[in-house]
């Protein structure tokens, strides 16, 4: 039986290519049969005519037999589909204007959807490259009194670690920036200090070499060996396996590379960014040795759940951890949160992708509504042709198939064009989104999943859109269509309502998009104004690495010279020394208190050591008091604190002149108060911070210094080279880096803004074109009516006003609906807006005005055409 079927398959397949021959063959055969029957009838005495008809009667219905015979031979339905498509292509070719407008509209919608879906897919869905990822969790802290997340401090981590009941393994990670010097060329890398528990929890094996041995985690021998990120290995060492076993100069120390992590770790955005090199660290190093000076490092905690333990159970168990006594009073209301690991590594703006997907969905809907409109219009134009087809015996199913074939041809063409659009979109947005998501350049590649998505979207759209006119045709009354007088006034009310509905829908969706975009613009504006607390425009950082470790005197000498010489470079307005750039993470954490007032509590702060003129150089406002006069290598000890620290310790009292105990027997007088720097990014609450003079740094490291430069404007192209030359002339052994201070955290907002802006513009464009098309068609349909009106004495501008009014009414209805929908949906947007209410009236009003203006513009031309109709021409027109 199966062999029969296979043979049939082959036969039918071959038959597709020999259709014409087979037709001729069958015709010949049947004719021969009839002739023979006729001859036999004649022989039995009938006269020729009767013989002929008798033969026919005996044979049966020739046409129907032929149909059946054809079906026995080949796949008739397939041929039919092919024929449908060929006809569709032909008829589309005959109306190029229609084809082009529909394809263009759909290409925008499909292209944008494809681009966004494939980007979002990479951002939201990929699986983490860890074994049994579902059991991997991150532990975070939540401050219930301030109702926001809080970093995990080392004492808490130490306490959590004791809970082995829920976890197979638990470990911590602390990151910092270090200089890697390869062949005299320095680069800044993110280094993660990891505990053994962490590596065990993640359970990732090295791709090359080995992981850390147990004794390498011992306190005292920390950081002497290193694991490299795959990408770092490729970029810095050219992927040379010989680097394993070699020493590299990292953070001023020689460390031996023992292994390379697998490349799969880099496929996950966020994860890749968090470490370039891994160094081992003893668990005990997080402990607090002296309770007077506790260790308050921030620790990133990850763990692997024991089989059978749920997130909630682990969280409940951790919640029972007693608060360590060294934790300050204001950090007592902390509860631990256990979350799946992918939530921790999710790109920060992934929530935004849902916004993006919503926006692109709107755009897609708009372009589909537009296309449907155009298709319905065309159906009406063709109704006579289609009616005749029905009359000649075609079934409605056939007609529907034809219409669907047409719409599929259109959508496939649009899809192909849309892929080009998507590629363009990648190029435009790729910079923003790619940098944010995945540096390994995976965005922009039209890979198989993307193409599959496009295909599905195309065919789906084609089917959907084809059904609209098909449904219309399906219900058409045959008689009416044929009887219809070509000169009758316009098309059915129902069709008009449908088209008006499409226009209203487009206007509503465009409104939603524009409001979303508008709100983001305002949020971004506010964010930029609040910013990071200091002026990032034209602020640069020169970072000098001094691996040879000069003496204190030569170090400060070097610093002075650097500041002075860099100040002299063209375009440089101000320079200042510092031990780090303003917005880094993982800097020194200390506990401070008001001298002699332990009852007021200790506060965990971070410290910066800066030279004179630092605050002015980075544009950090000085609120009270004064700046440092010099480096202040000796006494008196002074300190400048930030707003956050002032508020915490002194509430509203004047902190100037008060004395701050910084621990380690260092007591300083507060001589000034400056504004807050939002260290972890513009959206976070500023942390308490204090600044000591460069010469009074708590932990003098003579291995590097920073010089902050403020430029008068955009830098010259040769500035970096000048800076390097200058620094080289001061100290040839110093390795220099030079970069602009940028607020990376605003990056998310910028990306979102760009995407929404592009989509809003496209949506506005498409919606306007849609409105124009509908109005133009309506006017064309009503030409006769207008002609009659003019002939009867109506003034042309009355007609113009009529058309305008109708168009604006439709658009206004759509806008109102859009405003209402935005109101309802704005809660979704609230989470990504900064100090902007999702009900911001200015935005809503602005968008409404823009859309109505666009609608008016769209209606203008058709309206003018209506007014200029010549009565004679109109009355004669068919």
């Amino acid at each position, binding site marked *: 039986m199966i062999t*029969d079927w296979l043979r049939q398959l082959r036969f039918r397949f071959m*038959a597709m290519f020999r259709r014409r021959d087979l037709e001729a063959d069958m015709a010949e055969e049947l004719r021969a*049969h009839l002739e*023979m029957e006729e*001859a036999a009838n004649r022989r039995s005495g009938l006269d020729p005519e009767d013989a002929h008809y008798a033969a026919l009667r*005996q044979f049966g219905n020739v046409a129907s037999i032929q149909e059946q015979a054809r079906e*026995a031979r080949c796949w008739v339905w397939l041929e039919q589909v092919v024929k449908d498509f060929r006809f569709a292509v032909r008829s589309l070719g005959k109306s190029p204007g229609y084809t082009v407008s529909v394809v263009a509209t759909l290409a925008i919608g499909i292209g944008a959807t494809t681009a966004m879906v494939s980007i979002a897919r990479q951002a939201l869905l990929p699986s983490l490259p860890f074994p049994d990822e579902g059991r991997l969790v991150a532990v975070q802290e939540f401050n219930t009194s301030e109702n926001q997340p809080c970093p995990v401090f080392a004492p808490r981590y130490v306490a959590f670690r004791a809970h082995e009941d829920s976890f197979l393994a638990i470990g911590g990670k602390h990151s910092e920036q270090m200089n890697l010097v390869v062949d005299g060329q320095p680069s800044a890398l993110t280094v993660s200090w990891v505990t053994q528990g962490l590596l065990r929890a993640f359970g990732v094996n090295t791709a090359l070499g080995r992981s850390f041995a147990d004794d390498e985690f011992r306190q005292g021998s920390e950081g002497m060996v290193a694991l490299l990120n795959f990408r770092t290995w490729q970029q810095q060492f050219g992927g040379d396996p010989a680097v394993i076993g070699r020493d590299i100069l990292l953070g001023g120390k020689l460390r031996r590379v023992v292994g390379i992590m697998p490349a799969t770790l880099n496929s996950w955005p966020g994860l890749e960014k968090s470490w370039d090199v891994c160094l081992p660290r003893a668990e005990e190093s997080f402990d607090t040795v002296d309770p007077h000076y506790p260790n308050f490092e921030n620790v990133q905690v990850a763990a692997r759940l024991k089989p059978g333990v749920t997130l909630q159970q682990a969280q409940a168990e951790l919640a029972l951890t007693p608060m360590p006594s060294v934790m300050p009073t204001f950090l007592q209301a902390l509860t631990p949160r256990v979350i799946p690991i992918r939530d921790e590594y999710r790109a920060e703006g992934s929530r935004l992708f849902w916004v993006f997907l919503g926006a692109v969905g709107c755009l897609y809907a708009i372009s589909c509504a537009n296309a449907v409109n155009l298709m319905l219009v065309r159906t009406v134009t063709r109704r006579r042709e289609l009616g005749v087809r029905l009359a000649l015996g075609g079934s409605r199913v056939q007609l529907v198939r034809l219409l669907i074939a047409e719409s599929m041809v259109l959508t496939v063409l649009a899809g192909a064009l849309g892929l080009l659009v998507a590629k363009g979109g990648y190029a435009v947005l790729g910079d923003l989104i790619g940098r944010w998501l995945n540096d390994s350049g995976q965005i922009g590649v039209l890979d198989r999943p993307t193409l599959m998505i496009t295909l599905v979207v195309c065919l789906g759209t084609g089917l959907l859109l084809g059904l609209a006119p098909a449904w219309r045709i399906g219900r058409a009354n045959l008689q009416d269509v044929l009887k219809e007088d070509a000169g009758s006034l316009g098309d059915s009310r129902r069709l008009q309502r449908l088209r008006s509905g499409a226009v209203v829908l487009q206007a509503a969706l465009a409104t939603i998009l524009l409001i979303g975009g508008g709100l983001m613009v305002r949020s971004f504006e506010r964010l930029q104004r609040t910013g990071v607390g200091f002026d990032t425009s034209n602020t640069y950082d020169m970072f000098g690495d001094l691996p040879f470790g000069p003496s204190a005197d030569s170090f400060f000498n070097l610093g002075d010279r650097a500041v002075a010489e860099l100040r002299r470079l063209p375009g440089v307005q101000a320079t200042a020394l510092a031990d780090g750039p303003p917005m880094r993470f993982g800097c020194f954490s200390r506990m401070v208190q008001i001298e002699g007032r332990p009852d007021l509590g200790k506060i965990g702060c971070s410290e910066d050591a800066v030279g004179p003129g630092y605050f002015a150089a980075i544009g950090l406002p000085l609120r009270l008091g004064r700046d440092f006069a010099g480096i202040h290598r000796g006494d008196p000890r002074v300190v400048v604190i930030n707003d956050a620290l002032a508020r915490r310790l002194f509430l509203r009292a004047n902190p100037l002149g008060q004395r701050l105990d910084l621990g380690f027997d260092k007591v300083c007088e507060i001589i000034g108060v400056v504004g807050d720097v939002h260290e972890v990014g513009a959206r976070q609450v500023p942390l308490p911070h204090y600044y000591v003079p460069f010469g009074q740094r708590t932990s003098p490291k003579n291995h590097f210094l920073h010089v902050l430069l403020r430029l008068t404007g955009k830098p010259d192209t040769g500035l970096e080279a000048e800076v390097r030359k200058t620094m080289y002339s001061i100290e040839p052994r110093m390795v220099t880096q030079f970069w602009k201070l940028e607020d990376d955290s605003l990056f998310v907002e910028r990306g979102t803004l760009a995407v929404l802006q592009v989509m809003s513009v496209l949506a506005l464009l498409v919606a306007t074109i849609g409105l124009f098309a509908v109005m133009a068609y309506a006017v064309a349909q009503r030409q006769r009516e207008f002609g009659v009106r003019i002939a009867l004495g109506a003034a042309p501008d009355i007609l113009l006003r009529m058309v305008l009014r109708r168009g604006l009414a439709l658009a206004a209805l759509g806008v109102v609906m859009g405003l209402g929908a935005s109101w309802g949906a704005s809660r979704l947007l609230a989470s990504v807006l900064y100090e902007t209410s999702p009900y911001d009236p200015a935005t809503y009003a602005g968008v409404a005005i823009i859309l109505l203006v666009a609608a008016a513009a769209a209606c203008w031309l058709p309206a003018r055409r209506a007014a200029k109709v010549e009565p004679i021409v109109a009355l004669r027109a068919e």
Partner: protein
Amino acid sequence: MEKLDLPQGTLDLLVLRVLAAGEMHGWGIAQRLNVLSKEALQLQEGTLYPALYRMEAKGWIAAEWAQSENNRKAKYYSLTKIGRKRLDAEKEDWDRLVGVVAQVLHNA
């Protein structure tokens, strides 16, 4: 006697049987069926052709153009080896079916 309606699939069996005797063209098959069934089987001759094409597609019969007795061109069908095997199989099935049905009808 009224015309009998052929149950599904039996037409194939009959055609195979006819062709077992020798190759024949479509009209000839129709006449032969008529004769063999003593005129009881009055099928519409045209319905032969879909069946013939179907069997040709399955490989049971083969077709060839040739000169007919009246010096006309006609398409002759012949049984293939596969067709012959099918004929035997189908005949067996049919006999068994008929036997079972008859037994049930007469003895139930």
